[in-house]
């Protein structure tokens, strides 16, 4: 929607400028985060700005000595940004365990990006379904708190952490409210709008982001929902901030109404359940959130979650945005595809790289749309 989401768009396009300005304004530390399992609540409680590392979607030649070319494009593009000095304003870098490719990108970052002053690897269990997982993650969150206390040189009180939880929970709640608009017929919020809002939540000061979300939510009911929605799509995959791809999809007769991606719903879908023990509040939230494929075994909980999202948002079809060489997602794909199709949701598979060929992708999207409609042609 023209205008209403401009602030999010500007934040996205000038994210480094934003972070530098934040740092100059507040004097706080900026932390490069490399996965949405990062417990941002603790970083915020420590007065820091968590900034999720994103790629630049442009060719690069700096990662080859550090990580394999057959690691996923997002890992390579992310690491490239560090090696190229584009996150030189970040004192810290942290990764919460998800996949091995991300971990190696993180290791290379902490060793070879000269501006890194501290780094922290948070070894979250991948088998979050294990009965021991929450206890283990509790212990790790506690250790992370202690480490951060060392970094800032003072204790983080429970009240500090609770404040962090409240801020992040509010952000999650507001994003959910925004995404509710995508259930509408001819939705007022497009896939591009939603992407700008959810991806910027991962690097903009949460309180500022919350304020902007509230402004947008107050304005949205006054806006007409006169967009012709076309076919309602869901997107599925890992990280995706390819705005030009999303805009292309929505320009050829479709609207992206929901996603299961870590750049979207997986990041903010569930709030932390408030418990007396704030560490348990934080630890449990990450064990209970909609799972990334790396943390979704032995039961595939995400299959029904994805299907329910598609049904709740009345998606007519799903597009898999598969980061090339992303083994966890690729491993899930055949069964998830079958699960969706068995429940009446046709799918299309597209393989994403650091740069994506919009022309050939457009043919695939249009041809997919033609298989879903165009009955007047026969």
């Amino acid at each position, binding site marked *: 929607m023209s205008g209403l989401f401009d602030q999010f768009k500007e934040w996205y396009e000038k994210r480094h400028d934003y972070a530098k300005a934040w740092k100059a304004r507040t004097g706080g530390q900026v932390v490069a985060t490399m996965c949405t399992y990062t417990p941002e609540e603790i970083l915020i409680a420590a007065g820091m700005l968590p900034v999720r590392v994103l790629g630049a979607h442009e060719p690069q030649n700096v990662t080859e000595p550090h990580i394999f070319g057959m690691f996923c494009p997002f890992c390579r593009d992310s690491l490239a940004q560090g090696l190229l000095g584009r996150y030189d304003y970040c004192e810290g870098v942290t990764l919460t365990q998800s996949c091995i490719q991300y971990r190696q990108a993180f290791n290379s970052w902490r060793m070879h990006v000269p501006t890194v002053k501290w780094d922290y690897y948070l070894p979250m269990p991948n088998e979050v379904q294990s009965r021991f997982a929450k206890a283990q993650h509790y212990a790790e969150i506690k250790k992370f708190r202690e480490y951060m206390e060392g970094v800032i040189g003072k204790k983080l009180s429970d009240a500090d952490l609770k404040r962090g939880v409240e801020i992040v929970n509010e952000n999650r709640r507001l994003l959910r409210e925004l995404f509710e608009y995508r259930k509408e017929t001819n939705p007022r919020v497009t896939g591009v709008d939603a992407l700008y809002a959810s991806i910027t939540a991962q690097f903009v000061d949460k309180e500022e982001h919350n304020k902007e979300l509230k402004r947008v939510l107050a304005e949205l009911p006054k806006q007409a929902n006169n967009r012709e929605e076309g076919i309602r799509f869901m997107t599925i995959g890992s990280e995706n901030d390819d705005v030009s791809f999303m805009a292309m999809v929505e320009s050829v007769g479709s609207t992206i109404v929901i996603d299961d991606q870590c750049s979207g719903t997986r990041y903010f879908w569930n709030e932390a359940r408030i418990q007396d023990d704030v560490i348990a509040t934080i630890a449990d939230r990450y064990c209970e959130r909609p799972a990334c494929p790396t943390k979704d075994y032995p039961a595939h909980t995400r299959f029904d979650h994805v299907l329910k999202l598609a049904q709740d948002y009345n998606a007519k079809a799903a597009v898999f945005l598969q980061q090339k060489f992303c083994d966890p997602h690729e491993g899930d794909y055949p069964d998830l595809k079958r699960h969706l199709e068995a429940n009446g949701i046709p799918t299309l598979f597209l*393989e994403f*790289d650091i740069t994506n*060929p919009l*022309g*050939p992708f457009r*043919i*695939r999207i*249009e*041809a997919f749309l*033609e*298989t879903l409609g*165009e009955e*007047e*042609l*026969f």
Partner: protein
Amino acid sequence: MSSGEKKEYWRWQESCWIDESKDWRAAKIVTAGIDVGSVSSQAVVCVDGELYGFNSMRTGNNSPDSATNALAGVLEKSGMKLEDITYVIGTGYGRVNVPFAHKAITEIACHARGANYMGGNKIRTILDMGGQDCKAIHCDEKGKVTNFLMNDKCAAGTGRGMEVIADLMQIPIAELGPRSFDVDEEPQAVSSTCVVFAKSEALGLLKAGYSKNKVIAAYCQAMAERVVSLIERIGVENDFFITGGIAKNVGVVKRIEKLLGTTAAETKYDSQIAGALGAALFGHTLMLKQGASATKAA
């Protein structure tokens, strides 16, 4: 040929044809499909839902001109004017740049519809081997696409790759297929999946003492293996049909058939026009269903 003049071995036969037995002036609906591909452009004119004429030529350096030139061939040969055509659909890579088109439809849908016309309504699996990509398509009895796959980011296994090999071997492209069988034993396929590297590998084979025919056979086999891996991902269901320029290369087609253990349906039509034909047929259906409002809506 004068000395110093470069022979274009890659240049395939352009063609223009109209069905003299039909009188387009007596037709109720005249539609056209324009397929502007990366290598070739075709214009097909249908009268009352039947193929009337086509023109197939090399794509120029600009899509609108290529579309105009392709259609001009049929217009000139038939005495038709652009305004005599009720509905025009653009398809192919240049589909949105056909200046006189009422609608654009992807070549995937158009090839399926064209194959349905050319090969009959039993056709379920289509392999479109075009200039810069190949597509495996599954369709229903109406020619409606139910599933499809395209090759990714690479021109190996496509018409342009074959043109490169024709130039390298200095053998006219139409002779490559038959000559690929004139070998004492079938060679291993060239291993590269990239046109440029395949060319390097072909040069290496020549230097290693391979005959030209054997190198061509190795390239045809590589192309066949590449597209078969694509088509097997959507599953081959009979009847099976091949469209696009490579369908005219018997060296590739026979090897595909051998790998798949099936035979491609034969057609009396030029396989290269399938996309444009499908587009023209879609235009006819739209006119039947929507009448004049179809052109207004467009």
